[in-house]
C-alpha cells in the first residue's frame, strides 16, 4: 500500500515540480538560519556561524539533487531534459529539420495509407456478424463467369436441406443489371439499381435494419405484396432521409411497392459482392415463382455451424452435390453440379477469400513497395544525421569529457530521431488521412470494400510502430558512431582527411548505394507494371469501345394471349425496328443495335447447342454465354463477323439462325467434321430430337472479351431478338462524334417514341472497359507514384552525399586545381564518382529485382518479369537522375578558387 502511495506521490511530485522546489528552497534557507542562530548563541560571530553552518550542511546543490531524486521520477526528468535540448537544437537548424520531417512525412504517410488499404481489403474481417463463419459456395472460377457459379432454385433447396454443416444458406439473384428499377415519382421515371435476395439474406448475415424490418418468408411468396428495402445513401439522396419512409408506397416498375425498412449505413452490398457498383435497393426473390424455371440464378452463401471446419463443409458439399438437380421436373439434370475431372463441383470457400483473395498478390507488392520507400527515407535520414553529427562531434566530445556516459549521448541522439520521427508521423497522418478519404470516395474503382476504407485504431497503432522503428533505424547508427568517437582526437582540431572522416565517407557511400539499389528495385517494379498495363490496353477486345455508347431502353412487347412467344416477337421486332430507324437518323450516329447484356458487365449462359448428328459428350458442364441481339448490333459494337449478320427477315416463322464466336466454332468443329472446319452454314441444336429446334449458324464472330479484359474469351452465341426473348434491351450506338455529345438527342428520340422511357444514363462503352481495368490501373498508378517518390528521395540522397563530399574535399580540390587541374577535369571527376556509386547501386538493385521477379510475375500481363527493355530503361533513368543530382555539386567543385580553398581550413 505504501508503495502505491509512494508511486503516486512521485508522479504528483513530477507535475508540481516548481512548487516543490520553491518549498525546498525555503526549508533549506530556514535550516541554515536555524544553524546560524545556534552558533551565534554559542558565541561565534555571524560570519563564522554562517561558515560553520554551511560546512555542516554539506553541498547545497547536492542536497537539492538528492531531494529531487528521492521525490520524483528521475528517468522522466532526464527525458524532459533531453526533449527540451532536442527541440532547441532542431530549432536552431530549421532547414535540416524541415527537410527531414518532410521526407519522413511522405514515407510514413505512404505507409499508413497502404496499411489502411491492406487492412481494409485483406486483414479486417467482413462487416458482418461472425464473418469468419461465412462461406461462398460455388465451383472454382471458370470462363463462363457467374453463370457457372450459380444454382437453380431446386438445387439451392436440395443443398440447404441436405447439408449438415450450416446454420443457414442464403443467396441472391446474380443476373440483375444496373438501372433495373424504375421509380415513378413525377413526370419522368427515375432509374435505380436493385438486387433480389432470398428472404433470409439479412438474418443470415446478421444485418439489422436502421429503420423498419427486413424480409420474412411471407414477403417472397407467390402473390405477396411487393416490398422493398432502401439503402442508406439512396434513402438520403432520393427520399431526403424521410424519417417516416417506412410504410410508404411508391410506383416501382409499375407495381405499388411498400418500403418496409432502411438498411444501415454500414451495409454496402456492392462493396462486398459487386465491387464498383452501387446498389440502391433490395427486393425479395420469389424462389418458387417464375424464377424457378430460369435455371441457375442464385449465388449461395452459407454460415457454418460453430465448431464445423471448412474441410468438413467441403466433404459435406461433395456428398450433397450429386443430389442437386437443375430442375426437379427433369430427372436427367440431376448430378450436373457434381465434380467432373476437376471442373464443376460445389466448393465452399471462406467469403473473405472470395471477396478479396485475388488481390492478395497486388497488395503484397504494394506493401513491399511502400516498405522500400520507408527504407530509402531512413537511409536518407541516416546520411543527413551523420553529416550533421559530424559537425557536432566537438560538442559530443566535450560532453563525454565532462562525464556524460556513452549511453546518455546515444539516448540524446535517439531522442532527436524520435522527435523527428514523431513530427514526421504527425504530418504523415495528415497526408494519409487525406489520401484515404479521397480513395474511399473513388466509387469507380472496382475494388471490394474500398468504400469502407478509413483511418482507424489499427492504422494508428501501425503509425506508432513504424515511427518508432524508423527512428531506431536511422537514429541508432549515427548515434553509435558519434558516441564511440575518440575523445582526444575530436577535441583537438582535426584536419580533413583524418581516419574518422574516411570511415564516415565509406558509411555514407554504402548508404547511398543502398538507396540507389532500393530505388532501382522500385523503378523496375513500376516499369514492369506499367508495361503490363500498356499491354492490357492493347488487348484486342473483340469490339471497339471508342465512339460507342449504350443506354438502357424500356419497351413493352407484351401481347395478351400470346402462347408461344411468336406474337411478342413480332411486336418486339416492330418496336426495335422503329427505335433503330429513328436513332440511326440522328446526325452523328453511324450504327445502332440492341443487345441484352453488354460486355464486361453481367452475362448469362444456357444451353449447349451441338452439331446436329454428333453425340454430345457427357462431361461438359457449362455452355456458351448467350446474347440476344438485333441486326447491326455487331456493327455498332465494332465486332468483326464472317458470314452474314441477322436481318429483320429472320422472324419467328423463318428458320432459326444463330451467330457463334470463333472459340465456340473451333470447339464444335473438333467434334463435327465440317468441310474446312467452317461452321458457317452448319446446323447445331440444343435438342436433336426436334427439328423445329435446329439452329443454322449464319456467321462466326471474332471472340469478344466478355468476362474480363486480360483473360481468355469463352464461348459465345448470339440469338436474334426476333426469334428469342431478350432479358432487357441496351441500345448500343456507334457515333462519328464523341458519344457524350449525342446522349441528349438519343434520349429525346427514345422518349418521343415511348414516354415511359426513364431517364437512363448514356454510358460510353469505354467506361465499361475502364471499369474492368480499374483495379489494375489503380495498383499500377500507386506503385508508379511510389517509384517516383523513391527516385526523388534517392536523388536527394545522392545530391546530399556528393555535396557533402565536395565540401569536405575542398582543400584537396583546391590543391589539385593549383597544381594544374582544369575546372572541367574536376567537374568530370566528381560526376564520375557519382556515376560510379550509382552504377554499383543499380547493379545491386537489378540483381535483387531479378531475384524477386517471381513475386511480381503473377501480376503481369504478357510481360516477362525479366523484360530487358524495362531494366535498361530504368537503369538509364537512374543514371540520368544521378548525373543531374551530382551536377550541381560538381559545378560547385569546379568553381572552387584554389586560393580561397587553401586558406580556409
Amino acid at each position, binding site marked *: 500500500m*505504501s508503495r502505491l502511495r509512494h508511486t503516486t*506521490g512521485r508522479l504528483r511530485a513530477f507535475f508540481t515540480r516548481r512548487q516543490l522546489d520553491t518549498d*525546498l528552497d*525555503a526549508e533549506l534557507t*530556514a*535550516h541554515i538560519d*536555524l*544553524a546560524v542562530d545556534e552558533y551565534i548563541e554559542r558565541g561565534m560571530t555571524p560570519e563564522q556561524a554562517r561558515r560553520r553552518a554551511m560546512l555542516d550542511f554539506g*553541498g*547545497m546543490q547536492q542536497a537539492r539533487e538528492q531531494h529531487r531524486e528521492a521525490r520524483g521520477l528521475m528517468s522522466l526528468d532526464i527525458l524532459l531534459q533531453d526533449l527540451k535540448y532536442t527541440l532547441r537544437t532542431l530549432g536552431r537548424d530549421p532547414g535540416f529539420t524541415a527537410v527531414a520531417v518532410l521526407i519522413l512525412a511522405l514515407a510514413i504517410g505512404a505507409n499508413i495509407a497502404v496499411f489502411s488499404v491492406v487492412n481494409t481489403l485483406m486483414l479486417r474481417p467482413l462487416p458482418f456478424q461472425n464473418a469468419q463463419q461465412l462461406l461462398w459456395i460455388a465451383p472454382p472460377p471458370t470462363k463462363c463467369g457467374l453463370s457457372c457459379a450459380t444454382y437453380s432454385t431446386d438445387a439451392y433447396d436440395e443443398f440447404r436441406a441436405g447439408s449438415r454443416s450450416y446454420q443457414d444458406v442464403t443467396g441472391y439473384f446474380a443476373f440483375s443489371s444496373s438501372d433495373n428499377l424504375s421509380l415513378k415519382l413525377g413526370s419522368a421515371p427515375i432509374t435505380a439499381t436493385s438486387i433480389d435476395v432470398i428472404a433470409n439474406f439479412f438474418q443470415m448475415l446478421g444485418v439489422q435494419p436502421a429503420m423498419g424490418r427486413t424480409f420474412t418468408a411471407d414477403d417472397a411468396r407467390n402473390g405477396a405484396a411487393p416490398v422493398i428495402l432502401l439503402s442508406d445513401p439512396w434513402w438520403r439522396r432520393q427520399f431526403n432521409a424521410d424519417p417516416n419512409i417506412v410504410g410508404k408506397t411508391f410506383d416501382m416498375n409499375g407495381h405499388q411497392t411498400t418500403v418496409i425498412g432502411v438498411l444501415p449505413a454500414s451495409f454496402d452490398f456492392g462493396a462486398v459482392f459487386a465491387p464498383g457498383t452501387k446498389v440502391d435497393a433490395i427486393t425479395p426473390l420469389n424462389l418458387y415463382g417464375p424464377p424457378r424455371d430460369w435455371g441457375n440464378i442464385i449465388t449461395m452463401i452459407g454460415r457454418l455451424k460453430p465448431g464445423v471446419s471448412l474441410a468438413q463443409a467441403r466433404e459435406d458439399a461433395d456428398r450433397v452435390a450429386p443430389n442437386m438437380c437443375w430442375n426437379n421436373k427433369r430427372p436427367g439434370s440431376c448430378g450436373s453440379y457434381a465434380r467432373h475431372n476437376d471442373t464443376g463441383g460445389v466448393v465452399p470457400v471462406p467469403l473473405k477469400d472470395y471477396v478479396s483473395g485475388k488481390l492478395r498478390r497486388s497488395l503484397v507488392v504494394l506493401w513491399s513497395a511502400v516498405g522500400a520507400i520507408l527504407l530509402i527515407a531512413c537511409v536518407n535520414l541516416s546520411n543527413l544525421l551523420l553529416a550533421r553529427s559530424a559537425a557536432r562531434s566537438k560538442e559530443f566530445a566535450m560532453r563525454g569529457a565532462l562525464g556524460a556516459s556513452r549511453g546518455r549521448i546515444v539516448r540524446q541522439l535517439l531522442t532527436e530521431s524520435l522527435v523527428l520521427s514523431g513530427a514526421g508521423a504527425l504530418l504523415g497522418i495528415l497526408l494519409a488521412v487525406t489520401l484515404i478519404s479521397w480513395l474511399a470516395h473513388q466509387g469507380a474503382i472496382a475494388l471490394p470494400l474500398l468504400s469502407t476504407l478509413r483511418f482507424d485504431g489499427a492504422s494508428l497503432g501501425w503509425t506508432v510502430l513504424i515511427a518508432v522503428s524508423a527512428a531506431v533505424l536511422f537514429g541508432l547508427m549515427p548515434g553509435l558512431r558519434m558516441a564511440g568517437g575518440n575523445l582526444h582526437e575530436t577535441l583537438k582540431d582535426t584536419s580533413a582527411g583524418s581516419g574518422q572522416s574516411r570511415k564516415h565517407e565509406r558509411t555514407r557511400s554504402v548508404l547511398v548505394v543502398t538507396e540507389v539499389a532500393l530505388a532501382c528495385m522500385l523503378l523496375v517494379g513500376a516499369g514492369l507494371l506499367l508495361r503490363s498495363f500498356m499491354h492490357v490496353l492493347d488487348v484486342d477486345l473483340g469490339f471497339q469501345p471508342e465512339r460507342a455508347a449504350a443506354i438502357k431502353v424500356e419497351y413493352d412487347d407484351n401481347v395478351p394471349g400470346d402462347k408461344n412467344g411468336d406474337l411478342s416477337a413480332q411486336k418486339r421486332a416492330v418496336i426495335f425496328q422503329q427505335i433503330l430507324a429513328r436513332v440511326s437518323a440522328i446526325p452523328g450516329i453511324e450504327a445502332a443495335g440492341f443487345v441484352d447484356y453488354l460486355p464486361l458487365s453481367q452475362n448469362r449462359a444456357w444451353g449447349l447447342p451441338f452439331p446436329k448428328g454428333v453425340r454430345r459428350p457427357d462431361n461438359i458442364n457449362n455452355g456458351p454465354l448467350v446474347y440476344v441481339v438485333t441486326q447491326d448490333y455487331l456493327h455498332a459494337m465494332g465486332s468483326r463477323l464472317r458470314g452474314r449478320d441477322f436481318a429483320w427477315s429472320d422472324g419467328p416463322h423463318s428458320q432459326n439462325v444463330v451467330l457463334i464466336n470463333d472459340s465456340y466454332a473451333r470447339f464444335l468443329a473438333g467434334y463435327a467434321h465440317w468441310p474446312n472446319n467452317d461452321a458457317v452454314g452448319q446446323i447445331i441444336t440444343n435438342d436433336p430430337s426436334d427439328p423445329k429446334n435446329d439452329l443454322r449458324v449464319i456467321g462466326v464472330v471474332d471472340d469478344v472479351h466478355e468476362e474480363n479484359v486480360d483473360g481468355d474469351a469463352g464461348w459465345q452465341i448470339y440469338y436474334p431478338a426476333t426469334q428469342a426473348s431478350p432479358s432487357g434491351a441496351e441500345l448500343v450506338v456507334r457515333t462519328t462524334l464523341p458519344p457524350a455529345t449525342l446522349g441528349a438527342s438519343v434520349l429525346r428520340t427514345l422518349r418521343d417514341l415511348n414516354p415511359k422511357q426513364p431517364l437512363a444514363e448514356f454510358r460510353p462503352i469505354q467506361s465499361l472497359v475502364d471499369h474492368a481495368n480499374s483495379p489494375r490501373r489503380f495498383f499500377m498508378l500507386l506503385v508508379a507514384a511510389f517509384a517516383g517518390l523513391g527516385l526523388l528521395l534517392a536523388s536527394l540522397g545522392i545530391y546530399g552525399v556528393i555535396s557533402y563530399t565536395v565540401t569536405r574535399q575542398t582543400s584537396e580540390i583546391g590543391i589539385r586545381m593549383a597544381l594544374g587541374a582544369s575546372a572541367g577535369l574536376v567537374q568530370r571527376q566528381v560526376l564520375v564518382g557519382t556515376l560510379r556509386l550509382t552504377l554499383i547501386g543499380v547493379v545491386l538493385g537489378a540483381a535483387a529485382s531479378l531475384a524477386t521477379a517471381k513475386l511480381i510475375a503473377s501480376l503481369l500481363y504478357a510481360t516477362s518479369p525479366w523484360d530487358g527493355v524495362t531494366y535498361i530503361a530504368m537503369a538509364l533513368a537512374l543514371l540520368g537522375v544521378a548525373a543531374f543530382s551530382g551536377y550541381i555539386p560538381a559545378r560547385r567543385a569546379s568553381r572552387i578558387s584554389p586560393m580561397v580553398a587553401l586558406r580556409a581550413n
Partner: protein
Amino acid sequence: MPPSKLDLLQGTLDLMVLQTLTAMGSLHGYGIARRIEQVSGNQVLLNQGTIYASLVRLEQRGWIKSEWGTSGNNRKAKFYSITKAGRRQLAADARHWERLTGVMDRVFGMGKDADEVLGESENPA
C-alpha cells in the same frame, strides 16, 4: 586520531529519523539532523543536507507528515511529525533490527564456540 565516522545507508537514516520524531515529537529538519548528531555522539558521518531526501521519501510513503510553523526564535520552518502508519513501520523495523543484530552477534561469536557447534552436530542424538 578519532575513529572514522560510519557511513550511513539510506534505510538506516530513514529509521533514525522516524525514531527521533517518535521520541521528540514534532521537529523541523535542522532539529532532526542536530538530534541525530547528538545522540550518535558525533560518530555518524552526516551531511545535514542529506536529511531532506530522507524526509521527502518518508513523507511520500505516508510515515511522516509535515506542516509549516514557527520555531522558538521566530523562524519560519517546516515541522515534521510521525503518523500512525509511521509508528507501525518503526515498530516493525525495530523488530527487524533486533533480529538482525541477534543473528550477527551469533555469527561473529562463532569463532569462540566453534568446537561446541561442531560437537553438537556430530552427535547423532
